[in-house]
């Protein structure tokens, strides 16, 4: 594994044959798929009271806090899972490895249904968190599981174990080795995964809508609130609320990107 890391070509050495064309195509594609729809959404937005009403503010707060908590839990749990998958050898490993991606394949509404059956009033495990804020965390953790695992895993694979051996031979404890040698190497990947998980969590609808009970001021997340606005014929207000969610997410993603750049400042 150590050898393959050295054999990798460095991306910086390669240059695109026609940089102008590549940039043009990327911009066109991004515009069609992302920028235009978002601009149309902002254009459509009117009625800012849809997002300043107490009910909207409460839903927004709940969603942002839950998404941040979920992203943080993912940072730890996802890294641990990635570590186990890369560094340990155990029976059924490839099975577990495939299991990690399943939350992506399952239609989210089915995920909600399954979680309700497992952790609802009729839970076979005796755990009933349905229709509480814990249920929202649970549903979001389920759908965001793969992000950190899948961003950290390849970096861990490429990581040179000789560095760890060197650290150990110089007398570093296992914890010190992890903190000072491994963590700086995988932190950018963790942050990428955290950003993805956060963005996914803040807009999640399907997995949450069934198990949360959608009680305003208690368990109503912002995507359900927006859905309510649309169903009530107030699509302008729904768009306005969505623009605010997007702006907030964008801010958080930029901040995470900033931290990521800061942690990799020595590489550049």
């Amino acid at each position, binding site marked *: 594994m150590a050898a393959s890391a050295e054999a990798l070509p460095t991306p910086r050495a390669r240059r695109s044959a026609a940089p102008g064309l590549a940039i043009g195509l990327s911009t066109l594609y991004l515009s069609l798929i992302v920028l235009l729809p978002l601009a149309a959404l902002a254009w459509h937005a009117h009625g800012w009271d849809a997002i300043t009403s107490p009910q909207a503010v409460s839903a927004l707060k709940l969603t942002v806090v839950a998404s941040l908590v979920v992203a943080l839990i993912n940072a730890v749990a996802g890294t641990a899972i990635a570590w186990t998958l890369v560094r340990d050898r155990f029976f059924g490993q490839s099975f577990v490895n495939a299991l990690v991606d399943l939350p992506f394949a399952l239609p989210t509404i089915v995920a909600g249904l399954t979680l309700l059956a497992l952790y609802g009033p009729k839970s076979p495990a005796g755990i009933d968190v*349905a229709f509480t804020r814990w249920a929202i965390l649970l549903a979001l953790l389920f759908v965001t599981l793969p992000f950190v695992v899948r961003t950290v895993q390849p970096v861990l694979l490429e990581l040179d174990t000789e560095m760890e051996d060197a650290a150990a031979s110089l007398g570093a404890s296992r914890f010190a080795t992890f903190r000072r040698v491994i963590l700086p190497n995988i932190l950018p990947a963790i942050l990428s995964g955290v950003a993805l998980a956060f963005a996914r969590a803040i807009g999640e609808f399907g997995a949450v809508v069934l198990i949360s*009970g959608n*009680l305003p*001021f*208690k368990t109503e997340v912002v995507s359900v609130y927006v859905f*309510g606005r649309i*169903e*009530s014929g107030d699509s302008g*207000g729904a768009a306005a609320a969505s623009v605010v969610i997007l702006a907030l997410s964008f801010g958080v993603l930029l901040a995470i990107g900033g931290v990521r750049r800061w942690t990799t400042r020595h590489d550049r």
Partner: protein
Amino acid sequence: MRRISFTLILALAFPALAAGAARDTKLSLVAYSTPREAYGQLIPAFQKTAAGNGVSFSQSYGASGEQSRAVASGLDADLVAFSLAPDITSLVQKKLVAKNWANDKWHGMVTRSVVVFVVRDGNPKKLKTWNDLLKPGVQIVTPNPFTSGGARWNVMAAYGGALRAGKTPKQAETYLAQMWKHVVAQPASAREGLQTFLAGRGDVFLAYENEALFAQQKGQPVQFVIPKATILIENPIAVTSTSKNKPQAQAFLKYLRTKPAQRIFAQNGYRPVVKGVTQGLNFPNRPQLFTIKYVGGWAKVEKKFFDPRTGVMARIQASSGG
């Protein structure tokens, strides 16, 4: 040679075009989700009649409000069938359905139902009247009236039930607010509501009789009580003004109001709009049944109760925690 092979490919690719272009018409039915099973039986039955000979269907089912918006933004439809009249009214405003769509013997309606209390086995909390729902500790599940258009029937059933019990409109609004304090889950749709209730949440689930009967037919352990005072749900249907096959669409509409068709609806749990088709089926009469007119009609009700900014229900939702 080239031309011949091109024609050949066309004929191979579109055998239907070559064979029956002259007499086949395809009607596009855009409907809300619950009558899917009924239409699954009604369409083949219609095709066996003289009027339905050679008419095929494309069918689309989904949440009533969403289907209505889809048609408003350009989804092709010859017939629209929704859960409640406002979803057709919004198409009238866009000139997609004729203004006089409801000017017939059935006021534009094709099926009926009533709002019922789905309860736990044996009705342990003895819930029979709207007032019983205010007993201490009673937990109610109802779809959110802002995400589920159909849930508005529930709210108006509760409001009208309070009026029927002798309350003034103001007192009936207070009743709604008190009742809403007992609501422990507001799923996004009726079907999700049933899932929530079957998962063990709540003592009572406000639902439609046809949904409760459907769940029973599917073998779900569901019991329900019809309160003495409840609302008569009426589901509308209309031919669109943009339809290119109006005669066939009208013929299907006419068929849906015939006795055999209404019998099929009744077997699927809907109360029929014509008499004499319910033999062997149980649709108990309720002395204090009322229609949406009794509580003001949809136009007034939508504005007064369900305006997302100023409506009574918006206020009740806001006071539930704000």
